[in-house]
């Protein structure tokens, strides 16, 4: 793939709303805050990593925001910040080639479930709220965001859980490489609701360090050529991304598969292992214990080269599809003083179904 430039970006998470909030929290090393959501009784007995004071109507106004579900609202707020930051001109001469590529786990579990409940609990099973029907489809957030900002290019919603962000980036890289689009707002999102919180809680077993979270990161990706031609600042470059599946009969090969993804990324980007300054993984706890797919995979490919690990989970919580986007956001907000001019970061991700992936990013502080 050709290198992609990030000409602007936005982030919303438990660390706050916006890049500045995240940078301040990251660099002051402030402890992560635990927040509850109303109504508290519906949430599992776990600390939550909710976005503080998230009110879409306050952030974007009342018009066009009242029917949005939480994941669409989060997407829209984050996209607004990214668009503003990237200084894209969006008008009738450009909008047909500016699009969205958004990663998700399953859309909105809550929206689909609440809608299903209405079919059971209303007087008649068809007395569902028609205004809420669009919220039940997985591509609602991307569709609503396109309407709000008038983006008529490619509009893609890419599933993937912990790999959703890498998948969304792969999708965008393809669109840009093929010349189908000029710029694609790329990211991933997850909402915190009783449904996602309980889902995480029930699958976390005995591990108390897994904290249900929410957020989104949206990154305006375009070719370096175009970015330079328009005099836009490049905040980072995504140099390569690779993903791979391991069938269940070969799950023990996941570390090797991840190592192969990383090796492929380095090769595609013309880099060596020693060039990697920092690493952001998706399964931090097992990594720190010297276990798991990412630890064993990176051991195989990066060996003894020294790199720093940037942690994200304690601050953001378990954000499923949004994890990857927040990994990148954390990389961009980290304090890179004392490193090379343009340090290289490696993002990796793995999930319980056998999918692994990696991306190499050059930060341009």
């Amino acid at each position, binding site marked *: 793939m050709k290198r992609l430039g990030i000409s602007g970006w936005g982030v919303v998470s438990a660390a706050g709303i916006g890049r500045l909030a995240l940078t301040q929290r990251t660099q002051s090393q402030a402890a992560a805050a635990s927040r509850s959501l109303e109504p508290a009784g519906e949430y*599992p007995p776990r600390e939550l990593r909710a976005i503080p004071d998230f009110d879409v109507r306050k952030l974007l106004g009342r018009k066009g925001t009242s029917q949005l579900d939480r994941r669409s609202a989060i997407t829209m707020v984050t996209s607004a910040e990214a668009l503003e930051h990237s200084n894209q001109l969006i008008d009738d001469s450009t*909008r*047909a080639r500016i*699009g*969205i590529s958004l990663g*998700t*786990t*399953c*859309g909105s579990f809550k929206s*689909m*479930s609440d*809608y*299903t*409940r*209405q*079919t*059971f609990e209303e007087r008649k*099973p*068809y007395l*569902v709220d*028609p205004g809420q*029907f*669009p919220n*039940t*489809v*997985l*591509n*609602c957030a*991307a*569709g*609503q965001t*396109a*309407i709000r900002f008038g983006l*008529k*290019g*490619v*509009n*893609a*919603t*890419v*599933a*993937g859980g912990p790999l*959703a962000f890498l998948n969304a980036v*792969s*999708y965008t890289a*393809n669109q840009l490489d*093929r010349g*189908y689009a000029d710029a694609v707002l790329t990211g991933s999102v997850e909402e915190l609701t*009783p449904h996602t919180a*309980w*889902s995480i809680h*029930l*699958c976390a077993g005995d591990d108390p360090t897994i904290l249900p979270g929410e957020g989104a990161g949206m990154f305006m990706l375009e070719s370096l050529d175009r970015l330079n031609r328009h005099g836009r600042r490049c905040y980072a470059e995504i140099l390569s991304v690779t*993903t791979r*599946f*391991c*069938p269940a*009969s070969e799950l023990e090969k996941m570390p090797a598969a991840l190592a192969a993804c990383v090796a492929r990324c380095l090769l595609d980007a013309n880099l060596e292992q020693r060039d990697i300054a920092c690493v952001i993984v998706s399964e931090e706890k097992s990594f720190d214990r010297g276990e798991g797919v990412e630890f064993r995979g990176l051991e195989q490919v990066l060996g003894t080269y020294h790199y720093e690990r940037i942690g994200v989970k304690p601050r953001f919580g378990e954000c499923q599809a949004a994890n990857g986007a927040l990994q990148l956001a954390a990389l961009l907000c980290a304090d890179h003083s004392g490193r090379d001019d343009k340090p290289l970061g490696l993002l990796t991700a793995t*999930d319980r*179904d056998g999918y692994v992936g990696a991306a190499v990013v050059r930060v341009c502080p």
Partner: protein
Amino acid sequence: MRRVVITGLGPVSSIGIGATAFETGLREGRCGSSPIASFDTEGFPHIYAGEVNELRPAEILERLDPRNWGLSAVFAACAARLAVRDASLDLGAIDLQRLGVVIGTTCGESRVLEKLTEELRAHGFERMSPELLRQLATDRLAYGVSEELGSCGESITLSTACSASNYAIGYAYDQLATGNADVMVAGGADSVCRWVHAGFFRLGTLAKQLCIPFDRDRSGILTAEGGAALVLETLEHALARGATPYAEVLGYALNCDADHMVAPNATSIAACMRLAHARAGVSPADIDYICAHGTGTPTNDYVEVQAIRQVFGERVPPVSSIKSMLGHTMGAACGFGAIASTMAIRDGFLPPTINWKNEDPSLGGIDMVANAARTSEVKKVQNNGFAFGGNNAIVVFGAVA
């Protein structure tokens, strides 16, 4: 850029399972509508859908255990296995790391979602079962296919609603054209579910028993389900292993109305068509058949024909809707359209729009291949896909030159 061809077809549908049965269904104008069995229809005035009643996954699947997967993943995996067999593709003889999977969907694992909702209604959130929660993620659809085939390349589920299979085919085409893969399995899957049925009824766009696209008295969709999969490979790879390409993928286009979440926009759809033609290197005059989105709602069919006229002018080729037979299979719809388009090209026939009785004068006299399939030389086909969120995706197929 490498040329990309279709070498295998795997439909799991209400009118036939497997390429032969499906093609017979198309040619005969079989109607897949039946009384709904997958949920309790008490209280619903309309109780018909296009369910897949005859599937026995254990007889098709070779690796996947359907007990551990949701129904949509099972549809996708069965369709993929059928497509691979239809392609006579020996998975043991190819580089599995250069075999990728991309599946489209509207609702993902909707039946799993319903079961979880029943659990939480009855016993509270804390009693949702982890086994079901682990089956819910939408990425499981592509994973189910990868698991069934043992593929080690990419495995991506594109959830762009009712045009998703065209997105999938387009992405697969790109990966092959650029040399990132040698073989791709692309398609879509969805399951009939209660909330979608209710939702379309509430919008006033659910038909009672039959889907009658382009008819003056059309009243809406029938919800439907299934899995559609195609094997795509580079022409080079196909010829090297002695496979017979059925048709070629010439190009595709995507765009977004960015206007309304539900109502389609004719001008935007027309723009998508023009873009697809330009990318495929064809002009409107080259198109022999349009496999319509043709949902059977008053709005869609009218807007779709308007868009077609904006692009094709007076010379509109035959336009038929296989949703008249299948119902609206949501994320699988364009996949079935692609399979039908491929069969049309390979075997020289036009699938019909069945159930048609009365002309709708507002459509201005199109040839919708009313009620009976027709023998015809078909060299180039346009496969339409539109969706909630204004997600338009159109693929152009051609006979292999």
